[in-house]
């Protein structure tokens, strides 16, 4: 009983247990982030961009076909353990 109570308190305070979310770049490289469900994606995005040494303005994060809102959280998108976010570099084109 004491354990479950503690867990409840923890969930309320810290946003639940940590989950791992993968960020996959276009070459197939993956970075796994351990985050709490209520951590904003902005944190993941910035950590990823720092890790890859890329400008955040040039990377697009897509979760199941939809752009990731920086201010939303894994919990808002009902993300589950091990879900993958795709990172795409800016695409540009005009001719060949």
């Amino acid at each position: 009983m004491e354990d479950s109570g503690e867990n409840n308190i923890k969930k309320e305070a810290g946003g639940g247990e940590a989950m791992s979310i993968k960020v996959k770049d276009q070459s197939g490289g993956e970075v796994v982030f351990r985050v709490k469900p209520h951590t904003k994606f902005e944190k993941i995005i910035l950590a990823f961009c720092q890790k890859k040494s890329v400008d955040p303005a040039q990377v697009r994060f897509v979760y199941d076909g939809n752009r990731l809102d920086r201010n939303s959280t894994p919990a808002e998108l009902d993300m589950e353990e091990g879900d993958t976010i795709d990172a795409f570099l800016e695409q540009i084109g005009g001719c060949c």
Partner: protein
Amino acid sequence: MPFLGWVADALASASRSLTGTKRKARELGEAEGERDVEERTGAVSATRLRLQEPPAPAVIVAGIPRGPQRLEFSSPALAAPGRGGGAAAAAGGPASDSQPAAPRQRHDQPAPARSLDALLGNATPHGAPTSAGPAPFAKRFAPPAHPAPRPPHAGSRLLSGVRQVLEAPPSLTKMTLTPGTQRRHAAQPLGRVQGLFTAGRKADCGGDNGSLFFGNQQRQQRQQRQRQQQPLFARPSALRGGGGGAGVELQPLRQRRGGSGGSPSASQDAALLRKVVDYSLRQEELHERQHPAPPPVEEVDLTGEPSSSQQPPQAQQQQQQQQAWGAAPAPGGAAGLASGLPPAMAAAPERRFDWRDMLRQVAAQSESLDDDLSSDAGPQPLSATLRAEAPPPAALLNESAEAAALARRKALLADQQQLQFAAQAHTALEQSRPERAQRLEAEAAKIQQQLHDLHLQRTAAAAQHAQRSPAVAAAAAAAAAAAAAAAAEQEGEDVVDLLSDSEEEAEPSTSVAATEEVSEESEEEEEEEEAEVSQQLERVGLGEEVEGRLRIPASWRDEYEAALAPGDSREFLVDHPRSAIQITRRDIACMAPLQWLNDECINLYVSLLLERDAARRQQGLGPRCHFFSTFFCNKLYKDCGQYDYNAVRRWTMPKKLKTAGQASDSILDCDLIVVPVHQGMHWVCAVIDMRRRRFVYYDSLKGEDRRCLDHLAHYLRDEYKNKRQEQRDDVLEWPHEFPKKIPQQKNGCDCGVFTLLFASHAGRGTPMAFTQEQMNDWRVRIVHELLAMRLVDTP
């Protein structure tokens, strides 16, 4: 450059001396020389082959005293001087031997460069060649009968000058050696120069043996021009051998010369371009087959202190990742994307809309109007005199046209002022002076209001003028009638008098009637014009094209200019909540004319297309469409190197579709599935037509990517299987279409706009009615739609 003159003089004198020796040699008999050459070239058969072709580039290398090692690599014949020149020099010395040998030499190899060398050897009091390689040639080619063309001091100056040139960087050398063409080949390596010399010599040897390249500058230049016209892509290969030995140089040179026979046409260029595209597609296919192994997975803990425990390996991993990401762009760097950004694009995002350009345009417009006015001013006195006699309707129309033109000019001036104020406002904003900026903007708004008033005034003035003009015309007509009466009175007869009386009564009335008719006509015209304008305005409201040109309201242009104006590149201009896409000033800058579109603009537009589609469906309009983002094809097959349905399986789950804005629960319910595809540096639009059962590939450059449609066909089959549990292998049989009678881009930058328009028109089920000429207007409209986050044709 006086130095150039020296070189020219020296070479000219050398040519004189050599033609002299040539004549002598002919008299003495060529057999001896022939044998000499046989002896020299007999060593290596390949060498003989090369020497039979008159202009072996190697020789030019030999002519330039760059050191013996260069000679060794360039031509075996020259590398073994002992057989020819060396032996000759050793046996008889220059005086006895050079005469028979020289003409053959000149025939076989370009003499001028060598003779320059020889000349140097002779002319310098101290500078006798010491190296074993070039020295014998120099001696043999120094005509002993002819003294140095310059006094020693001049020679030494010449030598030092030539040395300076020869030891200078390649480009400088080239510039000096080919004075006639220095501008055109300003930055090319020495190998290029060798080529030029070779070409010149070849031309010479084909015609007159004795003539030197100096006398053939025109021909040389012509050849260079031909080479200049060669397709761009041929050049790298031709230049590849430039830094190396002459043997390497020779092959590309021949190829190049063979190509220069006919002047290369645009079709050749197009073919080459096509080859390049095909090559890139092949590379992609190859990449697909190879299945690159994915880099190792890293873990970062963001729950506590992010990645504190993994600090040491991080740097290493970072490096690995940088490699894995291709040319990993430095933070903040716009260029160097994995997609292979062309160098021209590197600076492109920096290009901003320039207010001055706009002002210049307006100024030009008002100038042209001025011209119109001045040309109108010409007939004005004429029309006045005409009116005095009888008022023709043209004069009245002319006058009202003038008034309208004046009003237009005023409007333009006001427009200009407004622009200036707006520009000032923006610069003030830049300098972070909000009060002043606000004031200026307020002034700009005021002027805009004035502009509007002016526009209203213009029509009112024209109408007033039309009303006023009958009175004037009537007065003029009365005067004319009086004059006529007076003229009639002068005749002095009763009958005439009576007639004149009747005339006096009759004339004014008719003239007034005529002017009234005229005024009515002009009023009618005005009304018609107004009706037309209002019709146009209605059409403008829809943003549809009028007479081949897209009508863009002034407010859209203002928005466009404001969005493209310089400012904080990270400033968010659009925040679209549904798609979570935020468009920054930097992103919108790619909508400026001639800029390449980036994925953000296209994906936001796709999102707006989805919203339009949902709205159309509510109105019962078809077709039902789904629009994928530009990342779909990347995820489906491009990035991982092979077709992978699972990578996009979850993209079309009902919940995800709803998030995207799709009204249906499944894309399989749709009539059309539109996929914008990023083809490296090109945007195209692929469409799955579910009703007509076919795959269509809209490419504004008439490209055909069958692989893309193949993958889409497989995707559709797998989607049926996964979402509907239906085995639909028939979709693989659906025809693939690459329509060619669609609007084509005529430049290298508008394919993104074309792609958006293909998607938009397909999604509306309307024919592809747009042209390259409208692209800048379409850009304005698209920016308006992006900023408003709503497509103009949304019901």
